[in-house]
């Protein structure tokens, strides 16, 4: 288990050790959340690397990662704990067969830890050999309001109450990272218990750096063109503009096709990697793509000329 970072710079270092290219704003809020033990609420479009932060954190700090993937109707039984009914049944039958009829005792036996099935949240509250785990509550916006309300207790006191067993409180609070794609607004009461950060699309420089770290096989010229192209796409009115994840996928795909630079045909062939709506693809495919490519080439040309001066 690695020690928690002691400054913003150390946090930035920690992230870059985990091959995560973060800007200073994210490092600051992450450092705050780590040192004051408050959940980190990350909101942003899909594919901007929110989930990745939790993974990198668990990896570099040597903690275990407990992931709770949210969906509508997620309830306490699948998020916190459930009893192992089959084993409980067997236990009841066995005690009946043995003629042991002390009901009080039986009840205490049946609702004990050994029949408890831990789900992610309870697991995250338990003592862990690696230190308090990283609890990733992914895509919270997919759950419904009742679950959100339930989370309030967990997030402010880091405890859950099991009627038959009593309250389970974390010896040390876990590191909590909550992500949301903003398909609906999360209630303010929950956000108040967290540090909030909007994860935006990266700048050109940062995205290029991400590409160099994560897709080192892509040719240098190709990487630059890919990033420029994607950045241009993000300025166009599309139903879903590509995220960083798509940029990486695209660079990979083009590298697989042995491309060292963008060319119109290759763009049209691989556009599906980048854009996820047929309408968007139809809009960009062909002349629009060619136009963007020409623009990029022009830009790169003038920049090279300026540099050589």
């Amino acid at each position, binding site marked *: 288990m690695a020690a928690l970072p002691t400054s913003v710079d150390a946090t930035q270092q920690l992230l870059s050790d985990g091959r995560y290219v973060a800007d*200073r704003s994210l490092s600051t809020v992450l450092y705050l959340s780590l040192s004051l033990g408050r959940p980190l609420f990350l909101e942003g479009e899909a594919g901007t690397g929110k989930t990745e932060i939790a993974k990198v954190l668990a990896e570099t700090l040597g903690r275990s990662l407990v992931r709770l993937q949210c969906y509508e109707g997620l309830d306490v039984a699948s998020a916190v704990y459930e009893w192992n009914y089959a084993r409980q049944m067997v236990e*009841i039958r066995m005690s009946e067969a043995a003629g042991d009829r002390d009901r009080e005792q039986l009840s205490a036996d049946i609702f004990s830890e050994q029949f408890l099935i831990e789900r992610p949240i309870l697991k995250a509250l338990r003592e862990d050999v690696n230190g308090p785990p990283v609890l990733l509550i992914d895509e919270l916006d997919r759950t419904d309001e*009742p679950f959100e309300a339930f989370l309030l207790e967990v997030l402010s006191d880091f405890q859950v109450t099991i009627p038959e067993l009593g309250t389970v409180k974390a010896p040390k609070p876990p590191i909590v990272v909550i992500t949301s794609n*903003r398909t609906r607004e999360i209630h303010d009461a929950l956000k108040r218990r967290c540090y*909030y950060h909007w994860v935006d699309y990266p700048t050109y420089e940062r995205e290029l750096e991400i590409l160099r770290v994560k897709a080192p096989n892509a040719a240098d010229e190709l990487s630059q063109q890919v990033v420029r192209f994607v950045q241009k796409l993000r300025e166009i009115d599309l139903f879903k503009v590509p995220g960083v994840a798509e940029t990486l996928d695209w660079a990979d795909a083009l590298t697989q096709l042995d491309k060292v630079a963008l060319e119109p045909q290759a763009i049209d062939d691989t556009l599906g990697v980048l854009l996820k709506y047929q309408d968007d693809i139809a809009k960009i495919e062909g002349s629009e793509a060619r136009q963007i490519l020409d623009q990029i080439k022009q830009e790169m040309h003038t920049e090279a000329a300026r540099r050589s001066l």
Partner: protein
Amino acid sequence: MTDAIAPESHAGDGRLVENLTLFARTLRAAGLPVGPGKVLEALRAVQTVGIERRDDLYWTLHAVFVTRRDQIALFDQAFHLFWRNPKILDRVMQMLLPEFQVAADEEEKRERVKRRLQEAMQQAPGEQQETEKEELELDATLTWSQQDVLRTKDFEQMSNAEMEQAKRAIRDLELPLDLLRTRRYRAARTPGRADMRRTMRAALRSGSGDIPIQWKQQTKRPPPLVLICDISGSMAQYSRMVLHFMHAVTSDRDRVQSFVFGTRLTNITHYLRHKDVDKALEKVGEEVTDWEGGTRIGACLESFNRVWSRRVLGQGATVLLITDGLDRDNAEGLARAVERLHKSCRQLIWLNPLLRYGGYQPKSMGAKAIMPYVDAFRAVHNLESLEDLAQALAKPAGVQQEGLNRWQEMVEA
């Protein structure tokens, strides 16, 4: 942003607390929901991160004070104004505040006077006009009860008093929507799925040899409802009533989102949440700038698709599109936008006030573009049609298709 922060804030914690308090107050005045507890929180955060770097301070306070994306711009401006020189901002605020106060007060007073005047005029001499109008309806009132006349009367021809009555009726209107099954369960008496948790407890209680199985069943809840209403000139009389309808629906149930559009789309859900309908509509009036102007249905629906659809249609929403289908843009891009809207919601219901005319045919370019993609097509011009709508919404999706074919044939003809 790496230059040092204003010298005032270096002078020990005392100044820092003071400055943070002032800053929090500034943010509150600017409209951010900053409670008193936030200052302490901010102080703790700032002490943790340190104030060596201006950008660290920025992001630290950002993490504490901002809770939504739309607050970021406001915070950004306030921060840069304040931490450059808190005194300037203080002075600016002092200079501005009293004036704002006066302006708002006066505005309110004027508004109150206006309303009182209106009320007075409605009761006394102004009644003449109304009686004249009512005479036209006299034959009707003789045969039906007052209630029934109102129910079938076109919103466009209603007098003010009737309008008031209609508003009240709308307020009491219930909206039983077809329920969706959720993945949550509750205890049930009839056999369905076994509720093992309760069964186990019952088994322990009974103590006899057999285990009485307890049951559970899926709970149901109404799907989210999204109302998109046209407020352009041609809809003027209806949209007022429809806004009352929207307000009634919004306060009646959760998971309702309301939008209005003329030349641009505005989300008015937040304003409609206000309990008092007059206040709510007043707020809407202030917020919406394109009342009774032209219509750009295609562009507005497209912007809905792009900005809102993934946020409000996620969980199987029903969409009520309220428009007469008369489009200034010659229905440009409308078909594409409606098609996408239809694909991303559970059912799309088009409410059209023009349906009240017996010979109405969906022949305008707008109507032709919308028609192929709607699941139901209904009139919305009087109370009765609104009540019909309420009942229609209670039916499961799909059943509503009936009757739509005739309209679609008309479009194709």
